[in-house]
Structures are given as structure tokens and as C-alpha cells.
């Protein structure tokens, strides 16, 4: 998060020929960019401070371990609530979404950047971007009323023929409102993020690299593997992580689709699962003082999870920097 602040110092220093006097335009612009960067940090710090401050009351009065307990009764006496189910469900739905969305998103971006005829590529890119503009409530309602009934037969098929794989087994014989359906809708929601950023990154690959690979007799696929992927890997990771960030924090679509039960459940075809942000949306209106504090505490954990995801992404990007062929 400190990158935008350091950025100005990394830039080439203004031409020294002009002497000591810095032009007002330069000074003002530098001032604006520096403060824009600092503002991002201040906003993040304020959010973190707010979350910590508001969540302390419920964390100190919880009668059970807030990290492991599997039920939600913060306004009971004594308060008993835990977020293990929420954290598990958030990660599990996001993992499913990533497994589906990252290959498809990168595939679509590759097609648009290297395979599609130029006119089709422009149109297709436009439509992928358009998908990102659909509000999440629409995805939620569509997922609940239209998509879910169509996925149920597929879930039944999975449970019947692949039920020997533990995550597909289904003892309840019910297939609606499952983690898999929520994950699939999330995948559709993050697809444009993954695809649009990957596409932009692919378009940055130096023409020289691509043409050199083709000139050496590489097929298209070999060119993509040898010239495009090494150069684009950090960007693709960034794209995936931004998608993951959206999946982790998605609220209303998941709130509509998931069954919101307080049990940890690996079986993705059964009704069940819960998630941090949807739980806040569902419980906030009727929550008492301690309930609100507990909900904010779950928000704090989500904040940390997102932070860890981003730091991991940054670390991966930096680790691969030397091999990327960029710069």
C-alpha cells in the first residue's frame, strides 16, 4: 500500500538544467499525487481503527471462543457467537469461484488478445467489461430464481456419479442453496475483473517478443507459453487477486443464494454455508448493541483476510519480477 507514496521518488528527477527553481505545475502535481496516495492509507487506517474500536466490546464479552464456535447468538445472555463458519464459508465459496473464473477469465482474455479477429475482439472486450457493470443484486436475483433451478440437475448428477468424492457427496438429498451455486455465481461476477485486467496485461507484451517467437517457428500456443505468460504472470496474479478480493467481500448476491446455516460443511452440493459479508447484511437490521459489535468483529476478520490475500499477491508478484521479462 506504500507504493503510491514512494512512486514519485522513483520517477526520473526533473531536468536539472532548469536550476533550483521548480516549476509551480510540477510542484502542484507532485503535491496532488502524494496526497492522493496518502489519502488511500488514511482511509484504510481509519477503517481499521473503526473496526477494532467497535469490535472490542463484543470480543471481550463473548462466552465462547469467537474464532471457533459454530453458532450466532451475540444478543443472548451470555453472548455466544463465533465466526469459524463465516470464515470457512467465505474462503470456500471464493475458492470455488476462483477455480472456475481464473481459467475461463484468462482463456477469454487470451482469445481476445491473440486469437479473435480484431473486430470481434473489440466487441467481445466491450461485453466482458459490460458484465462488470451489472449490479450484484441482479446477479443475486438471477442466481436465485433463474440459475439455481438449472444447476440443481447438475448437482444431482455430481452427487450421484461423483458422490464418492467427499466434497460432492450429498446425504440430505437436497440440492438448492448450496455453496457450489454461490461459488458459480461469484465466478460469473469476478470473471470480468479477471478477464479485463489479464487482457490489458496481454496487450502490453512487447510486439518484438511475440514476433520473435513466431519467427522462430513457434505455434500460437507455444508463443503464448514462451512470450506472453512469462511477461504477464505478475499481471495475471494481480488480476486473480483482485477477483478474489471481490469474491471475498461480495455481499448481497451471496446473501440471497447461500442457505446461511451455522455449520461448517465441506459438501458443496448440499444446502448450507455462510459468509462474512452476507451475514452482516442479514443480521444488522435486527441486531442489538452487542450483535452489531460482533458483526463488526467479523468485518475486522474479513479486512485482515483481504489484507493477507493482497500481501500474498504482492509477494508473489515481486518474487517473479526477475523472470517476467518486463522493465
Amino acid at each position, binding site marked *: 500500500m506504500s*507504493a*503510491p507514496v514512494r*512512486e514519485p521518488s*522513483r520517477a526520473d528527477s526533473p531536468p536539472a538544467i532548469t536550476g533550483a527553481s521548480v516549476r509551480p505545475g510540477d510542484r502542484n502535481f507532485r503535491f496532488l499525487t502524494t496526497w492522493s*496516495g496518502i489519502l*488511500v492509507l488514511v*482511509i484504510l487506517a481509519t*477503517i481499521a481503527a473503526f473496526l477494532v474500536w467497535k469490535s472490542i466490546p463484543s470480543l471481550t464479552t463473548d462466552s465462547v471462543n469467537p474464532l471457533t464456535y459454530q*453458532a*450466532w*447468538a451475540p*444478543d*443472548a445472555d451470555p453472548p455466544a457467537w463465533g465466526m469459524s463458519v463465516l470464515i470457512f464459508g467465505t474462503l470456500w465459496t471464493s475458492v470455488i469461484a476462483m477455480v472456475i473464473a481464473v481459467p475461463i477469465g484468462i482463456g477469454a482474455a487470451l482469445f481476445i488478445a491473440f486469437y479473435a479477429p480484431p473486430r470481434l475482439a473489440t466487441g467481445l472486450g466491450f461485453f466482458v467489461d459490460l458484465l462488470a457493470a451489472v*449490479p450484484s*443484486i441482479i446477479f443475486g436475483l438471477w442466481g436465485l430464481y433463474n440459475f439455481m*433451478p438449472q444447476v440443481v440437475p447438475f448437482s444431482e448428477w455430481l452427487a450421484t456419479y461423483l458422490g464418492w468424492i467427499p466434497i460432492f457427496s450429498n446425504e*440430505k*438429498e*437436497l440440492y*438448492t*442453496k448450496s455453496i457450489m451455486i454461490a461459488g458459480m455465481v461469484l465466478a460469473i461476477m469476478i470473471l470480468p475483473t479477471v478477464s479485463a485486467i489479464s487482457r490489458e496485461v496481454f496487450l502490453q507484451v512487447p510486439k518484438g517478443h511475440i514476433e520473435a517467437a513466431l519467427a522462430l517457428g513457434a505455434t500460437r500456443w507455444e508463443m503464448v507459453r514462451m512470450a506472453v505468460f512469462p511477461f504477464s504472470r*505478475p499481471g495475471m496474479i*494481480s488480476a486473480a*487477486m*483482485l477477483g478474489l*478480493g*471481490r469474491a471475498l*467481500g*461480495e*455481499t*448481497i448476491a451471496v*446473501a*440471497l443464494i*447461500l*442457505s*446461511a*446455516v*451455522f*455449520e461448517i460443511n465441506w459438501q458443496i452440493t448440499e*444446502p448450507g454455508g455462510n459468509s462474512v*459479508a452476507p451475514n*452482516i*447484511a442479514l*443480521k*444488522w*437490521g*435486527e*441486531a*442489538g*448493541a452487542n*450483535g*452489531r459489535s460482533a458483526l463488526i468483529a467479523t468485518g475486522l476478520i474479513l479486512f485482515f483476510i*483481504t489484507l493477507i490475500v*493482497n500481501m500474498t*499477491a*504482492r509477494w508473489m508478484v515481486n518474487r517473479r*519480477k526477475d523472470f*517476467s521479462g*518486463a*522493465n
Partner: protein
Amino acid sequence: MKKSKVAVAAAALATGTLVLTACSSSSSSESTAGNASAPAAASSAAAAPAGDINCQSGSISASGSSAQANAVTEWVNAYQTACPDATIDYQAVGSGAGVEAFTSGQTSFAGTDAAVGAADIAAASAQCENGGQGINIPMVGGAIAVAYNLDGVDGLVLTPDVLAGIFDSTITKWNDAKIADLNPGVTLPDATIAQFHRSDSSGTTANFTGYLDAASNGAWTYGVGKDWTAPGGQGAKGSDQVIASIESTPNSIGYDELSYVQNATNAKAAQIDNGGGPVEATSDNAANTIAGAQIVGSGNNLELSLDYATKTPGDYPIVLVTYEFTCEAGLPADKNPALTQAFLSYAASDAGQSSLTGAGYVPITGDLLTKVRAAVDALPTS
């Protein structure tokens, strides 16, 4: 170049967080609008004789329970039609948030699904001046129906302990002997019961679990609360989606407000047998139970204790009452006590209460209504 990409990513993420926050708050107001969107029948209420209406001018705002939002909307439309100088704004933000808004002095009254308990009244009455205290006034009754979607089955009868078994997932098949015994002559399918409950916190869940807890002789072990805690089943958000889920899922069952079940084409309300014979879920049968509720508050604080375990024939036991919470004395002048009193007085009038049935609610009747009117008449007018 890469550094700046990360910076862009970080900035995009921060904005993303903000946008998501905005999304969640806008979605709650969206659902509010959804809850309040039904008052198409308001014109009939508006046609009620204006003689009941004491017109005051100015504006008040109130907020709270979404369960009573449609009722309040009807009253607001009728009152504002009769008194063009008055503006009443009711936000269906939920009971907890409504009481909090009243406590912090933002509203003239709060709508709440559960009465503010005697121990909490002093704290919740912070804005009442000159030592005034808040009181709970029961204003809107409701009934919770157990809706089921079973092809070819009519008039299903259920008892509280069987309901407890279905809703804690110990009874999982429709042709379970416990259900079959209650319904001789009815062919029940050999199918898994798809059970639906509310995934959001709700007064409906609190009253339904309250009923199971009080009437099932210990068969229900998951306590009483706004949040569903029993294992199994499927959660759905809001009354509208509970009934939509039941209607679209064969062999399903769930609890929902009576009006939603009555309007459903593909779901029926079960008859409930507390021990005095099966009782149909109707507004009249529910009104009987509410009229028989015991007042546990003192003076004009009409906090009620509902007799969920009633065995009186013709009393439908799964009912709820929502209250208006306001200052018995000392409502600050900027909260427009005159309009507050006049509006609540219209709500308690014959016209106000009779408009409830059409909106899917249950009116307050009998002695209780007399006491409600006495409490409203005693509210400060200046």
C-alpha cells in the same frame, strides 16, 4: 511499471471496498423499499371516514420493525390524505435500529417486534424530557403460518412437538409416522422434507421459536431468538423469499407471515393443533389469541405476554404483536408530540385497525384495544 500496477491495484481495491460498503447499505434501503411497496390497497383505507382523524401539521419521522411497515404505510397514506399539512416518514430499518434511533433522539417513535423490556426502558428513554419514560403500545398484530408445498395434500394438521421435530431436522421424511398419525387418510409422499427458515434476523423467527419453545413441551431445544440456530434446513432472506422458496420447491415447508401464505398460489397453511383440536390460520383466529394476551407491563406500558400454548378451540396460537415505543411524557417539542399523538390515535381507531386485515395483519381487539386507546389518549400533545 510493475510498481505502479500494484499501486493501481491497491487503489482499485480500496475503492472496491468503499463501493461494496455502499452496495450493502443501498441494498438494505432497497429491501426497505421492497417491504413498503405493497400499499396498493391504501386507497381503500384513505376512503375511511375522516372523522376519526385529528389533523395536525408538521412532520415526524419514525423507524423500526419491517414487519409492521406495510401497516404503518397504510396509516401514513390515510392520514396524509386526510391531513395534507402532515408528513410522516417511517423507515423500516429493523426493530433494533429503530429503538436505537429513538434512543438517540432521531425519531418520534420506534416500531419494534419485541417490547422494550422493563430493565431497558430507562436507557431507551434518553430523549424523553422531565423524567418521562418510554412505553410500549401494541398496535399491529400478526399471525405466522406454517406453509407447505405438497402435491395433493390439503388441510395438513401439525402439532407443536411435530413442528419442533421438522424444524430441528429430527423428522426428515414426509411419511414419518409422527406426521402420518396426525393426518389419517392423507397420503403423504416418501420424500425428504425441504425445510425453509429465515436467514436474516427477524421478529418472525423470534415469535416462531417462542411458540415452539412454549408449546412443544420441551421437544424444541434451540431456545428463542431472532436468529435461527437449529441445524439443517435452508435459510432464505426475508418473508418474500421464504414463500418464494417454498412455492418453487416441491415437498417443502417453512414459516412465514400469514399474508404471504394467503397470497401464495403454490403453498397452503397448515392447521395447528395445540391440544384443543386443529385450528386454521386465519386473521380472526389469531385475533382471538392476541386479545387473550396477558399484560405484563405496568400502567400504560402495555408489554404483552402471548399465550402460545393456548388450548382454547378457535385460538390460532402462532401470533406476534408489534409495538410502537414512544415517550409517555416529555417527548421533546422538536419531535412534534401533537402529530405523534394524533397519528398513533388514528392507528388505534376503528378505521386504523380495520385497515389491518386487508393488509394481511391481525387487528387488536377487545379489552386490549380499549387499553391501547387509553394509553394513546394519555400521550403528550405538546
